[in-house]
């Protein structure tokens, strides 16, 4: 360590920049920890709130004693009932029928599953008290909730909080009875189960099936497919897994930067000492000892970088994980540390530095003593064939020649700069392409649809009478439910055969005609190897249904379109629907109960989700660009520092700062250009690979929209950034008197 301090005293700026660049690179490896950090925060929350492993949405449970009914089932430890409904809220006498908000009724105070807790205030005790999720209302406020049959309930907010089962959503938590009253239920409509031991997917499915059987004996039907959360996960863990995996991928980029940086920093540090080592050899130092000394120095620098880098990495991973969790699920996680990543990055830095140092130290101590003593530079220009070749080409101005020859001379450093620029450009392109791709995807998602608005009635069931829509020629009643096909969660749309709401032009086959016809999204069908004429089994809340595929639709998502009447019959509610599509912004169909209207533009914009993703990727892009920027700065600083005598000589014979700047930037320019070219190529390949992995992981079709529009800006950032760095470095060396530089040359 004292050696490191000695080093810092010797060339403060340069060593500090290297240490910091290395530290930041090590820190950026912390990005790897984000998936773990996020998952562990979520699992902590799941454990704390005792989240259910099986959730069933049902029709009214009436007076059936659900816990008593279910506990005999093998593997069921606890079962509780809940009520989920929607109300419109307003204040005072004039409830404004805003979009419905969820009301969750639970047995407050006696809960053992999905435990609701108050972060501020207290839990509701009386029927007219309510606890709200953060941001919905303040403690003490009064909420007028309009529920089933237009009955208004006045509720006083007594606390703010919730349970992570509902994290990120706006919810009013009330007593079971209050919620049941608002929903017009006798019993409940949601059953949550905690199992005794078997928590894998198959066993949980078996438990859910057994539960559904008992329900059906009691006349209770499922309104949604059972929700299953295996292996102690958090219900939303899978939702953010993709985002965090993607972020983890960027950790690889950071890792590559770190490797390049570690290699070049360590190498320079030791090569610089060729002469010093030669003097010591001359004085009788043994090679082995010298090598050990040099290795120790390099490892010392790496350790110093790790000491700063590890806390930095923990900070980076936690900040980004927190952004992810807050933006996507609305929970604020505690500090989490991924031990493997910490140990891995420290080991990487130390072992890496040692390996590179050993090689460099061997090389340095093997230079013939005579030439090592004679030359200021460890490997003077002209030793290698390539250098002599470059020296023989009298092309370009004299200053440009020195630039080109220096690029040839310091090959590894030149390559490092190319690599770093490549990484910076590639990351920037990936981040921006990701943004444009999401944007395009949001548009293409809706491209086939013609509706301007869709109106739903609060509630999980098919609550709309199909005939209501007959009054409005510009509206259609349809069904939109979740199903399963080949292990994938899919969107099942029930539409009239002559629907106007979706473009019926298909990629292949014909639109639905017969009762059991189905049209499937083309990309999804291809992924599942489904062709026109095949039979498919779609799992609905009511059970499996068989359809014959008649056509493939250009829709990019996982969708199955079937006849609306067939579907309603399948779901056990013939003649009922759950959505009114309209070609206008507002349907003229009169719907009883609470409605929620979604407009086409609102869906296509999807601003918040995009902002969240861009924020996170922007943050990561910033980290990567900062790391590479520092890496380039440190490489350049070493380069300029090493050649300060050369620049002093240039100044002595009349060269101005401008000339030196020209030499440095002429060296940087071709490297930056090459880096930009490679960066664009890798950026394209990388974006494509990420999009491809998303397509494979989600069975959806995403078209890569490479952000060509961003290229000028990215190029400008890289070019101006490197010129600025070069300017700064040159300013530093030229600010000292020439005499001083020449004096220290010996």
């Amino acid at each position: 360590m004292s050696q490191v301090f000695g080093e810092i005293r010797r060339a403060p700026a340069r060593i500090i920049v290297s240490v910091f660049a290395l530290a930041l690179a090590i820190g950026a490896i912390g990005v790897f920890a984000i998936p773990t950090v996020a998952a562990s925060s979520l699992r902590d929350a799941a454990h704390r709130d005792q989240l259910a492993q099986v959730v069933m949405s049902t029709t009214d449970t009436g007076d059936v004693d659900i816990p008593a009914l279910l506990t005999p089932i093998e593997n069921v430890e606890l079962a509780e009932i809940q009520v989920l409904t929607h109300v419109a809220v307003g204040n005072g006498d004039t409830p404004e029928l805003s979009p419905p908000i969820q009301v969750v009724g639970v047995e407050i105070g006696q809960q053992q599953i999905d435990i609701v807790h108050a972060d501020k205030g207290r839990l509701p005790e009386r029927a007219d008290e309510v606890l709200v999720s953060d941001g919905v209302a303040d403690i003490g406020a009064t909420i007028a909730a309009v529920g089933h049959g237009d009955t208004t309930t006045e509720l006083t907010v007594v606390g703010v909080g919730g349970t992570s089962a509902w994290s990120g959503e706006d919810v009013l938590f009330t007593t079971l009875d209050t919620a049941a009253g608002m929903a017009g239920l006798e019993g409940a409509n949601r059953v949550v189960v905690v199992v005794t031991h078997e928590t894998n997917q198959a066993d949980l499915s078996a438990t859910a099936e057994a539960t559904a059987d008992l329900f059906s004996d009691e006349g209770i039907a499922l309104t949604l497919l059972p929700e299953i959360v295996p292996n102690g996960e958090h219900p939303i863990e899978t939702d953010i897994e993709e985002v965090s995996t993607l972020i983890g991928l960027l950790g690889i980029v950071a890792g590559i930067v770190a490797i390049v940086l570690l290699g070049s920093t360590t190498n320079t540090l030791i090569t610089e000492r060729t002469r010093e080592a030669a003097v010591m050899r001359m004085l009788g130092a043994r090679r082995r000892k010298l090598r050990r000394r040099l290795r120790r120095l390099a490892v010392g620098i790496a350790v110093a970088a790790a000491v700063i880098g590890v806390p930095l990495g923990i900070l980076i991973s936690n900040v980004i994980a927190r952004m992810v969790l807050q933006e996507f699920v609305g929970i604020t996680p505690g500090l989490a540390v991924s031990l493997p990543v910490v140990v891995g990055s420290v080991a990487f830095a130390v072992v890496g530095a040692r390996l590179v140092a050993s090689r460099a130290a061997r090389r340095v101590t093997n230079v013939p003593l005579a030439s090592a003593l004679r030359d200021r530079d460890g490997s003077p220009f002209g030793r290698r064939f390539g250098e002599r070749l470059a020296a023989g080409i009298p092309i370009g101005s004299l200053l440009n020649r020195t630039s080109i020859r220096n690029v040839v001379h310091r090959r590894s450093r030149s390559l490092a700069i190319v690599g770093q620029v490549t990484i910076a450009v590639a990351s920037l392109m990936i981040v921006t392409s990701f943004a444009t791709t999401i944007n395009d995807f949001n548009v293409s998602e809706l491209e086939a649809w013609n509706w301007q608005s869709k109106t739903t009635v609060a509630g999980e069931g098919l609550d709309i009478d199909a005939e209501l829509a007959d009054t409005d020629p510009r509206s259609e009643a349809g069904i939109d439910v979740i199903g399963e096909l080949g292990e994938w969660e899919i969107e099942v749309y029930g539409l009239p055969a002559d629907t106007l709401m979706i473009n019926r032009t298909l990629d292949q086959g014909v639109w639905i005609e017969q009762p059991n016809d189905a049209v499937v999204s083309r990309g999804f069908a291809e992924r599942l190897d489904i062709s026109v004429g095949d039979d498919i089994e779609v799992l609905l809340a009511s059970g499996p249904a068989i359809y014959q595929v008649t056509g493939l639709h250009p829709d990019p998502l996982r969708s199955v379109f079937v006849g609306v009447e067939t579907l309603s019959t399948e779901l056990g509610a013939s003649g009922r629907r759950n959505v009114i599509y309209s070609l206008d912004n507002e349907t003229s169909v009169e719907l009883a109960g609470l409605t929620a209207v979604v407009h086409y533009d609102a869906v296509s914009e999807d601003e918040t989700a995009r902002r969240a993703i861009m924020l996170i990727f922007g943050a990561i892009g910033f980290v990567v660009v900062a790391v590479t920027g520092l890496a380039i700065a440190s490489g350049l600083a070493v380069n300029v520092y090493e050649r300060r005598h050369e620049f002093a000589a240039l100044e002595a014979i009349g060269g101005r700062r401008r000339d030196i700047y020209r030499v440095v930037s002429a060296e940087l320019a071709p490297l930056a250009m090459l880096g930009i070219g490679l960066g664009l190529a890798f950026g394209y390949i990388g974006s494509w690979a990420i999009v491809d992995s998303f397509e494979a992981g989600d069975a959806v079709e995403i078209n890569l929209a490479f952000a060509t529009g961003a290229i000028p800006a990215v190029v400008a950032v890289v070019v101006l950034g490197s010129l600025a760095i070069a300017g700064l470095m040159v300013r530093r060396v030229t600010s000292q008197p020439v005499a001083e530089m020449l004096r220290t040359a010996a």
Partner: protein
Amino acid sequence: MEFTWPISPSGSAYRPLVQATDLTRRWGKGTASHLGVDNVELSIGQGELAAIVGPSGSGKSTLGSLIAGLDQPTAGSLVVAGTRIDQLSNDRLARWRGSNVGIVLQNFHLLPTLTAAENIELALKLSESRVSRRERRNRSGEALASVGLSDKAKRLPTQLSGGEQQRVAVARAMVTMPRLIVADEPTGSLDQESGHIVFDLLAGAVANGTTVLLITHDHELAGQADRVIRMLDGRIGDPSAGDIPGQQSSDVLGHRDEPNQSADELVSPGRHR
């Protein structure tokens, strides 16, 4: 083609090329500060070959750097070749150096990535004389020939011996036809024969009217100068004292080391050859 120095030998009238008044170079501030050059008054005439001698650490290099415009004084004024160089900005000073001084240093300081010929061409290019590339190449060739290295034009510095590198450095200093050449121990790392060659080249430049300021430890070389300036502790020997403190112990005085003569030189510079 014969290489000729365009500056004609000066006449007998003394015209100063270097005029230093109260010249001081100090490092650091307050009590921690120390002086490299202390209140120096000095005048060097055009076409003169002046040698600076003195013990190690006496400030020779510091004074040489100031005169060559490689460093800036902390006090005093310095006029060289008609320009007040103590007040120039860095860039102007660089430009001034390019067209007015040639510099030769102990460690040669050739650009390692340029060949011998290219190193010389670069000096020409930076000296602002608007010469064509072709002309530059010719003159660089002539300068190399004048130091006897025509056959090594395409060698890189690492492929040249120390003496050869120094000859290239001298050629580089002379090719711009500067009015002043400052040479700080140009023969310091050379053997005697190479040292003589380099000295003769510098003397040749004087013969063509260039002023040469030679800093050296070599008694013999200093003895061949028109004038010897002695330094001690950052000062030039005080002529009125008649003697320079510590002079006896100095090992650099050589055969012209008579107090009267050196004092005389300090007040009335002139040609002795």
